[in-house]
């Protein structure tokens, strides 16, 4: 396993970036304190100094503290929504792919309908009416619309695995459906599930940052999207307060780079044929 990660440049580089970001977000309590991310912690809109390494925003929040406490919030949303979405998607995909027939047709129909409607839009409608107050609520809301791609990926793979010889043998020897799904199908699907987990996490983070940027996220806890929302709201761009909006952008780009590399690395493990191409 370790050798697989080391051999796979994308996977190891991506993992390194994510670990770096985790260390950064755990450093929150060491380098800065939580109250530095509160309104009025310093003088407003000041460029970086030794006291505030990344300066302060319009309302006197320390930008570095804001980021160090905001990054884990965004990661948390991604993780909760991603895990729940993939969990749901795996169950639906396995059931649809294995049983086929009417069950498959109905699951496919619902998945297709939800795939067509952009989740950001449903979330905009829901979030604009029920103001989201906490990071966890936001995560659950996004999770409710994160199961479609995993469902599709898992279903497609279970369809092919279902026809393999060892599954047929298990079926003819009278193994129960649930045993076949859990012990024959699931283990062979793990690489795909892992790849779609990373994809779902990064999709969930993207949507949550989009929602926060539109002003529809939780507004009482720091998060990466909220920092950008305030920066736009107070015209940080026009006033050229670069230390306010550039660092969160940098962190978000790093985050997506890391997730992208991991998912392309996992893809290579899931589809060995891709390995020869680079």
């Amino acid at each position, binding site marked *: 396993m370790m050798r697989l990660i080391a051999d796979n440049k994308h996977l190891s580089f991506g993992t390194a970036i994510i670990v770096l970001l985790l260390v950064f977000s755990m450093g929150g309590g060491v380098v800065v304190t939580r109250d530095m991310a509160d309104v009025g912690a310093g003088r407003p809109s000041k460029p970086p100094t030794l006291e505030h390494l990344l300066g302060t925003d319009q309302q006197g929040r320390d930008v570095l503290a804001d980021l160090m406490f905001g990054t884990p919030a965004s990661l948390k949303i991604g993780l909760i929504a991603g895990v729940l979405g993939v969990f749901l998607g795996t169950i639906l995909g396995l059931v649809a792919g294995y049983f086929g027939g009417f069950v498959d047709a109905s699951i496919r129909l619902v998945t297709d309908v939800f795939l067509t409607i952009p989740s950001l839009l449903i979330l*905009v409608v829901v979030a604009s009416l029920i103001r989201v107050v906490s990071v966890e609520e936001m995560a659950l809301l996004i999770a409710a619309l994160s199961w479609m791609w995993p469902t599709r990926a898992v279903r497609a793979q279970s369809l092919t695995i279902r026809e393999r010889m060892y599954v047929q043998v298990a079926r003819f020897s009278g193994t129960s459906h649930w045993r076949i799904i859990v012990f024959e199908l699931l283990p062979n699907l793990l690489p795909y599930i892992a790849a779609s987990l990373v994809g779902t996490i990064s999709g969930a983070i993207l949507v949550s940052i989009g929602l926060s940027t539109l002003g529809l996220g939780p507004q009482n806890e720091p998060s990466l999207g909220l920092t950008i929302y305030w920066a736009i709201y107070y015209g940080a*761009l026009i006033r050229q307060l670069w230390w306010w909006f550039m660092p969160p952008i940098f962190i978000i780009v790093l985050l*997506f780079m890391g997730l992208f590399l991991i998912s392309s690395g996992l893809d290579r493990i899931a589809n060995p044929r891709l390995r020869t191409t680079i």
Partner: protein
Amino acid sequence: MTIGFLLRRLGIFCLIVFAAATINFMVPRLRPTNPIESRLYELAAQGGVRVGQIKEMVRIYNEKFGFDKPLYVQYANYWIDLAHGDMGTSISFYPASVRAEIMRAAPWTIGLLTVATLLSFGVGSILGALMAWPKVGPYVSFLVPIFMTLSAIPYYLLGIVMIYTFALVWPILPTSAAYSSGKNLEWSLDMILDIAKHAVLPAGSIILTGIGGWGLGMRAMMVTIMGEDYMNMAESKGLRPRTIFFRYALRNAVLPQVTSLAISLAHIMSGAVVVEVIFAYPGVGYLLFRAISGNDYFLIQGIVLFIILSIGIALLTLDLLYPLIDPRIRYGKN
């Protein structure tokens, strides 16, 4: 194409419309407060209207919008109105109708996104194909990590960086809007240049982030095609490399890309919501943002329904046209 496929596809379309419209109808009514009442109290807080007057206004408006009738009557009326293309009246742009506001914004979004999507598809696909071509590949291989970075950046964040760089630090382009304020919308060269100048940055951010994805996709397709027998055949026949590249490799590799292009074109209405907000570009996305800021529920729902409908119709058309683009596809045969 079989009748069964056609029916299934139409069924999905109807389901999408039904689901979107019903969510739009139900969600606001799950709230304990009345949207009109809360909006009026908000106005009162700013303006100093007496509470007694508000009660009267709420009663009149409730009657006008039909909030005093039972839920199923409201639902039926909602569908009747929708069938007439009536999506209600905007609260924040009163007395403009929701439909008029959307129709004013839609051309901007369609124009910006169509140009940006086509450009990023064209440039990305050609660069991607070159990256996989043995004679050129090594010279452009430095593009691979750049493409990966670009495809990982949310386009609106690149938009922020571009505004900062090209409109503020080095002010050669306008920061926001679709045309200079004070100008009249008319068909003149001056106006077209002005619109183009304003579109460079928002379109640029979408194009640049898009190029990465198209390029990497095209490169992967080309790599697969290079291993095909007909490529060896073409080479051994002594065809010119350019002919092989364009006629044999590119033409075959681009087909799956065209499918994705069509799907992205179907999604243009929802593609740039946040970019439009950042550039204050007067399209559908910016309208949605202003509707959210103004708690204008009718407008929010109208826009969302409009976008979902446009995606549904576009994808339906695409599915029906697809056998014409790729004759290998025959729906429902296997």
